[in-house]
């Protein structure tokens, strides 16, 4: 038996987005719907331990929230105030009401949050808040901003949705693909934010990145056939499955040194399963597919030494010609160095610091390859350059360690 507290938490995780999308569809008031649903959950947490869990927890939450919105609307009417409603498309049909158990409008809610008319840095934050119910302070931590900054960003985005007339409803047929690409980009951005080292001792924030994975799962459930969605989820699951092995006693553990038994096997298998049978595509879907194939190659290797570097290098080459990205070039250089030797990797790094002047990884990678070739002095200088550019404490510690090792070699 689950305790009432556990039920509240479980329903919050599973049902927040669906309930909010229904409340929004029915009332077309973002502000009131979000507040009222939050309050309904708070009330459930307070009451269910005493009164017991109702037969239909989500029905109870929906009704409680809806009643509160109606009360607020009445108060507004009495005060003679009339707030703007969320726009809806002319052909939009609200989800079946009152079948709260089955109706779902989350896809429209996700498309609304990720609309290209919203600032990019607000989109994923808004999707996490409205679709997943992720608390604002956790979203703030994910994107390395303060909670008040994030709260203001979310408020502005919601205001713009209403004022600019960004509508609830499916995009026109020919636009859906580009809009879905943007949704995937948005979710991937949120995920990588969780693994981006910030200043200070926090190496990464895997729990917050996990919220983005959950959002990707929701999207896949809603659109199981969309290739970009499938490739994105595969990529996220494969990368996220390594989270527990990436850090040891507050220190970064490189992929090669990770204890592979700590990788989450179920997530890894799920990612590989999604990727199997996914045909080559075009555009962003193909970008995601290639990245997922690279992650899959790492996931399949029983030991670091058995990694299929030649295959990975080939995928990176395809990815580089598709994107022209300097970061991809950097990663390709690492793969090529593993497959063909350090000098081949160094050749690919040529000129890259001009394209990525603030990225310490160019210098760090070069240092490592110089060291493998026995150019200790060049390695030393490159590690120092990397240290100058790196601001994350944990990564800096790792770089200093490398310098120490070099010194020991030199003696």
């Amino acid at each position: 038996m689950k305790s009432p507290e556990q039920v509240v938490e479980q329903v919050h995780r599973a049902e927040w987005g669906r309930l909010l999308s229904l409340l929004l569809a029915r009332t077309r008031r973002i502000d009131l719907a979000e507040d009222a649903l939050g309050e309904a959950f708070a009330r459930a947490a307070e009451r269910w331990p005493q009164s017991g869990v109702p037969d239909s927890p989500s029905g109870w939450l929906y009704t409680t929230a809806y009643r509160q919105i109606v009360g607020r609307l009445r108060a507004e009417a009495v005060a003679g105030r009339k707030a703007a409603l969320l726009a809806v498309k002319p052909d939009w049909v609200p989800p079946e009401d009152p079948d709260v158990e089955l109706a779902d409008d989350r896809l429209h809610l996700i498309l609304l949050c990720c609309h290209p008319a919203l600032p990019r840095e607000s989109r994923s934050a808004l999707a996490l808040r409205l679709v997943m119910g992720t608390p604002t302070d956790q979203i703030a931590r994910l994107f390395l901003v303060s909670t008040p900054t994030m709260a203001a960003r979310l408020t502005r985005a919601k205001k713009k949705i209403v004022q600019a007339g960004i509508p609830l409803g499916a995009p026109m047929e020919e636009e859906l693909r580009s809009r879905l690409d943007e949704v995937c980009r948005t979710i991937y951005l949120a995920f990588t934010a969780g693994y981006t080292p910030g200043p200070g001792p926090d190496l990464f924030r895997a729990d917050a990145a996990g919220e983005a994975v959950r959002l990707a799962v929701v999207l896949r459930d809603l659109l199981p056939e969309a290739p970009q969605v499938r490739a994105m989820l595969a990529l996220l699951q494969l990368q996220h499955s390594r989270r527990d092995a990436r850090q040891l006693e507050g220190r970064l553990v490189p992929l090669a040194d990770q204890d592979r038994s700590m990788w989450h096997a179920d997530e890894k298998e799920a990612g590989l399963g999604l990727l199997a049978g996914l045909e080559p595509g075009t555009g962003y879907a193909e970008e995601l597919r290639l990245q997922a194939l690279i992650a899959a190659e790492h996931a399949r290797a029983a030991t670091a030494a058995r990694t299929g570097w030649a295959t990975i290098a080939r995928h990176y080459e395809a990815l580089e010609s598709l994107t022209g990205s300097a970061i991809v070039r950097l990663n390709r250089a690492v793969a090529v160095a593993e497959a063909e030797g350090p000098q081949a990797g160094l050749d690919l790094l040529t000129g890259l610091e001009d394209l990525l002047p603030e990225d310490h990884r160019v210098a760090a990678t070069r240092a490592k390859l110089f060291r493998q070739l026995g150019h200790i002095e060049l390695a030393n200088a490159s590690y120092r350059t990397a240290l100058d550019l790196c601001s994350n404490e944990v990564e800096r510690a790792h770089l200093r360690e490398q310098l120490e090792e070099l010194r020991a070699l030199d003696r």
Partner: protein
Amino acid sequence: MKHFVLLAGYGETTPWDEMTADEQEAEMAKHVAFSEACESRSGVEMLGGEALGDGSMATTLRTRGGEMTITDGPFAEVAEHIGGYYLLEAPDLDTVIDLCRLLPALDIEIIPVLEVP
């Protein structure tokens, strides 16, 4: 809701004066197609729209410290030529964006009109 559609810059199109007669005709046909699409789309109504004269014909008024100065030309801040505008009643932003695809490839800014209660 009302949307102000500002034709804010030439984008990749040729300035009107530099177009051949045929090009001008093709350009006009796009505006006509846009207007017709607005009329036939449900929930959309064209409330107004005009083409504007060249920026060099503009007069700028500024009031600073209570004193109005009158100068020649457009605001220096407006780098691009504002070619005209439309005022549309439309149910939502996506409908407006979709209709704007029919217009020439100008740089366009869609601004919501505030509803004064």
